[in-house]
């Protein structure tokens, strides 16, 4: 069977890979590029554990074919920390204990990053609705929401 040659950019670096036409972006990230931070929870777009940012839009990488990534820019959890320095969202998730098992955390972090990129000063309600597609069975969400609000405040400070 013929594989497709795909050229894309992942976390700022040009990347090329061969993909079976039926492979999802998540399959390629995890199994071809060894970027295993994005998780497969449901495989049907319900849980958000595979959330990545493609051309500035938050998407489920399980609901996107790898071939569709041709010429796009993909941002995954592996690109969130810069040079060993945790992103404020990651730091605040630690400080607020906004995780337990951690399976949903990469998706929640990418979804939160996408929110703060377009809305640096969200209300708690906005955070909760934005993250409605990221399921977490450990935290009950309160700590996640507090961590995001706190990270947003810190990022606003940094901008001043």
């Amino acid at each position, binding site marked *: 069977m013929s594989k497709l040659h795909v050229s894309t950019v992942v976390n700022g670096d040009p990347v090329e890979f061969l993909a079976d036409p039926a492979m999802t972006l998540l399959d390629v990230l995890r199994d071809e590029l060894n970027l295993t931070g994005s998780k497969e929870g449901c495989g049907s777009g319900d849980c*958000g554990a595979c959330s990545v940012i493609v051309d500035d839009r938050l998407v489920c990488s399980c609901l996107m074919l790898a071939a569709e990534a041709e010429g796009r820019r993909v941002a995954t959890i592996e690109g969130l920390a810069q040079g060993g320095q945790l992103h404020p969202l990651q730091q605040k998730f630690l400080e607020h204990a906004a995780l337990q098992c951690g399976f949903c955390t990469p998706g929640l972090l990418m979804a939160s990053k996408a929110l703060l990129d377009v809305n640096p000063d969200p209300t708690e309600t906005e955070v909760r609705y934005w993250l409605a*597609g990221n399921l977490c069975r450990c935290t009950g969400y309160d700590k996640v929401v507090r961590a995001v609000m706190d990270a947003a405040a810190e990022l606003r400070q940094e901008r001043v």
Partner: protein
Amino acid sequence: MSQLQYLAPSTIDDAVLALAASGARALSGGTDLLVQLRAGRMAPGAIVDLKRIEGISGIRQEGGAFIIGAATSGAVIGEHAALCRAWPGVVEAVNLIGSTQVQGRATMAGNLCNASPAADSVPALIAARAVCIIAGPGGRREAPVEDIVTAPGRTSLAQGEFIVAFRLPPRPARSSDAYLRLIPRTEMDIAVAGAGVSLTLDAEGRVSEAYVALGAVAPTALLVADAGAALVGGRLDEDSLSRLDAAARAACRPISDKRGTIEYRTKIAGVLARRAAQAAYQRASDQA
């Protein structure tokens, strides 16, 4: 292993050719298609990604009408200020579909052609009198949104045909719309029932034109002419609202399933039609 082909044509003509092959399926946002592929509910020979066609994404205005490209995502639709002002009901219906992640990809054309009876954008588009611009082997044609879905999972599109864009008609002054759905929680669920209402008021605040469409209460979304007619000439007094409610309930042919019984869906369809009419009326009045 599958013998699936992935094609990403850059022109409408090439897409029509690719889709005319037997076993070819159109890919837009993919939020339904990829789920069905994975579940093995379909085994297409080729997936034809329409998003690389020039001009298939984006929103433009043409003589008062809005032309919304078929591959425009829900997120882009929700960010378009002029569209939100003119068609708040259509926009709120589209934005109710799925999560933020799903909104980043999902499209109105996909929501329509997936042909679920509970598709949220469809009643709002029907009430808006939206028209589909369709490309196919026989050239271009146009069809109102209510003519597309023929049964759950089935459409009237012929082999090789696909929706290129939606056209929302020019809006007279004092016009607005609204869409409401009932789900047992606030997010991430499928409608038990849904109602879209679009109306125009005269200078005295009386309804001069009204369209009502219902979702999830029949095999396809319904345009309920009697329900729209019940509103015309009045100011949404209790008499016209109760006639609207009765007409909406009379049109329902729902099923009982885990989301709701026939009786509950029917009752709720009337309630949602009333509330959507009131929301649309308020929005239209606020423009005056």
